[in-house]
């Protein structure tokens, strides 16, 4: 079996063109930026015959060139990707083969975008996202990794090899190296992005790493938001002693450098004492409290409706809560195995708890600030005059009106949580060392970085694109939510 090159047969025609257009694009961007300081501004001139004429000069020329070259570059990248899907395996090189492996993700992305853009006027803020280019790019990047995580985690689709199995002879091999051992052949006969220092497939580890990250980061951020909202609303609304106390506590946590906090919370000795389990007990009660108070405030005046709803919600959430905090092998373990819904594998609960713990004070501060601002509004005064109770006002009057900044911050915070998870992995804290998550993989690869650069670069790129996507998404959402 031949080793794969990066672009295969497509590359022989397209590579020279692509390098020319890429260099030209770079030059045009530089020229445009430099010209924007000196050249006169682009003006529109109305002609006598009713037409408009654009007078761009050198700057306008550069602007036009940038636009055209950008389109050319994107088209050429599409040639690589689509060529990889259409040509038989191996002809389109590594990029083509990877593009083919991601085919289910491409289909899912195209479907999502097609449906969303068709119905974007009926979809509220989510639909408006498709009016902003930045937002769409961010959304595409995020959904790319979400689909990858789901398809790889649940259906074993994208990855080519097992993330943990080693194949002898492939240690630190370059991308596109063929697998010689016939018995261990995976979905494709090559290590698409090379092998790491334990002869595992870098590409598959990157793909499975997305599953770890996508399953922890959004959920941890959500729990942190529940904690922050449940504490921040009363702190901002009632002020006084409660506010002083909670603000002091949150400042206390915020004054810790994050890494120090991780080193104090995520060591085997601390886990032995059970502090993370107790913290989980406290932190995970907040979502339960949040939903119960939310529904109670809404249906308080209709007991016939409220009681069944509350009982149902309490039963489901309470059961989830108990199954989450009761883990065999820790100090908090009271549910028998047949009652325990799920067990979170070793280390993940600790990581989850510490990430929630680090994030919630910031969310608390944001919610508190927003509440302080919103409680002086007329609709709050109106609700108070109507005789609504405080929790109804907080959860059904103030919270919906604070949703814009909170949604934007939620996106940013998922990105921040992803970075924190990577930091934990980078220092080898919490998650098991063979875990394919991106931080641990970067940590494993950096030791041999001076000789073998490919093992840490794939997860680094993956983490970068996901966080970038979340940032762009937040930017797009902010822009669109400010418009109305």
């Amino acid at each position, binding site marked *: 079996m031949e080793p794969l090159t990066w672009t295969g047969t497509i590359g022989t025609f397209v590579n020279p063109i692509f390098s020319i257009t890429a260099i030209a694009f770079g030059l045009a961007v530089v020229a445009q930026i430099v010209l924007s300081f000196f050249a006169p501004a682009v003006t529109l001139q109305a002609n006598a015959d009713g037409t408009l004429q654009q007078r761009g000069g050198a700057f306008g020329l550069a602007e036009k060139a940038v636009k055209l070259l950008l389109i050319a570059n994107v088209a050429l990248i599409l040639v690589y990707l689509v060529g990889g899907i259409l040509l038989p395996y191996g002809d389109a090189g590594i990029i083509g083969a990877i593009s083919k492996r991601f085919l289910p993700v491409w289909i899912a992305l195209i479907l999502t975008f097609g449906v969303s853009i068709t119905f974007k006027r009926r979809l509220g803020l989510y639909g408006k996202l498709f009016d902003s280019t930045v937002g769409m790019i961010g959304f595409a990047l995020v959904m790319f990794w979400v689909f990858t995580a789901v398809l790889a985690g649940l259906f074993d689709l994208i990855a080519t090899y097992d993330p943990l199995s080693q194949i002898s002879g492939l240690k630190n091999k370059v991308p596109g190296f063929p697998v010689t051992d016939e018995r261990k052949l995976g979905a494709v006969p090559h290590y698409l992005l090379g092998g790491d220092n334990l002869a595992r497939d870098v590409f598959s580890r990157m793909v499975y790493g997305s599953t770890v990250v996508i399953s922890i980061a959004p959920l941890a951020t959500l729990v942190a938001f529940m904690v922050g909202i449940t504490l921040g609303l009363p702190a901002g609304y009632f002020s006084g002693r409660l506010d002083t106390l909670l603000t002091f506590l949150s400042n206390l946590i915020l004054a810790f450098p994050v890494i120090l906090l991780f*080193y104090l919370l995520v060591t085997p*000795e601390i886990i032995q004492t059970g502090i993370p389990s107790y913290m989980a007990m406290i932190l995970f009660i907040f979502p339960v409290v949040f939903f119960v108070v939310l529904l109670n405030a809404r249906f308080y005046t209709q007991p016939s409706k409220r009681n069944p709803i509350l009982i149902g919600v309490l039963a489901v959430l309470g059961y989830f809560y108990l199954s989450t905090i009761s883990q065999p092998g820790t100090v908090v373990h009271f549910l028998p195995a047949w009652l325990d819904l799920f067990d979170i594998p070793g280390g993940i609960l600790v990581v989850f708890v510490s990430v929630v713990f680090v994030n919630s004070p910031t969310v608390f501060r944001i919610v508190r600030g927003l509440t302080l601002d919103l409680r002086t509004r007329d609709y709050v005064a109106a609700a108070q005059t109507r005789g609504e109770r405080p929790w109804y006002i907080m959860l059904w009057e103030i919270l919906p009106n604070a949703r814009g900044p909170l949604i934007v911050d939620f996106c940013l915070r998922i990105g921040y949580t992803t970075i924190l998870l990577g930091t934990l992995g980078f220092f080898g804290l919490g998650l098991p060392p063979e875990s394919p998550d991106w931080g641990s993989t970067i940590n494993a690869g950096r030791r041999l970085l001076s000789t073998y650069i490919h093992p840490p670069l794939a997860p680094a790129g993956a983490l970068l694109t996901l966080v970038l996507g979340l940032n762009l998404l937040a930017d797009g959402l902010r822009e669109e939510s400010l418009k109305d």
Partner: protein
Amino acid sequence: MLLFLARKTLGMLVTALCLTLIVFFLTNLSPNLEKLAKSELGARITDDEVASWLDKNGYAQPTLVRYGEWLGVLPGWTRDNDGEFTGRCIDGKADAETAASASRFCGVVQGDWGESSVFKRDVGEVVSRALKLTGKLMLCVMLVMVPGALIVGVLAGMREGSRLDRSLSTLSILTTATPEYVSGVVLVAIFASSAVGLKWLNGSATSAMDNITIANFTLPVLTIALYGMGYIARMTRASMTEVMTAQYIRTARLKGVSFYNVVMKHALRNALIAPFTVIMLQFPWLLNGVVIVETLFNYKGFGWTLVQAASNNDIELLLAVSVVSVFVVLISQLISDIGYVFLNPRIRIT
């Protein structure tokens, strides 16, 4: 103003006390102490031997008492083993006379930080050496990051929505989305790998501890600076765009003041108030970056010491490192509060 300062400082001291108590509690949990005893005496000792060693070395007292001793507000423990005295403030074993003449208090307040069990040296010495090295790194980072970020932010913010603004804003989003461990790895791969790439710079900063050269110090500095730069630049841009739409800027423009003069003389000073606070509040984050970068580039400064202390269960050293980093954070918050008052004439403290 003095009252404001006093209240802030008092609040800071209370916070610091609480934080050190938490750190002390978390680092002195019984599994940590057991591990310490085992690392001193060997891993195969029995539980009784662990208990007696802890008792002999003063670890068996209640945590709060030991916190007081560590802080230097409670007298250090002493022990009489048939005329041989040991104690917190006594080096090794001593006779009754020396023990009586030894100082009663020896804690942080007296400047006694204990001894590091990893480096076998005085904690104060280890930390001050590490801080000196990190100080150099931070100075270089600040010299690169602050002017760079301010220039990028002002350029992007002076004409909102222009192509320059868009490219610079995208660039700063990109750098904020790149944590240090990603940008460090990418930069090393590009500039320092011996296999492929440009091979211009060093992938390790160990030699920079003695003499700093461009080759061994560029990458660590750049790695930390890039991550912080994007955030500061975005804040500067936001504040600059806000100032540029203000009435007095329009008046100045209508009076015929040139764009350059409007930016330099009228807008800039007001636009730089907000970034100042952001830069000061960026310190806790820089501390994170320092830990990551010093580990990545093997530069034996403060962050590296933190990792060594934490992963080797070096209790005294970890306590000292935590105290220093907590104080850095708190003092930078204090400076940011005070500086904000000084810079912004609209705020007056009475």
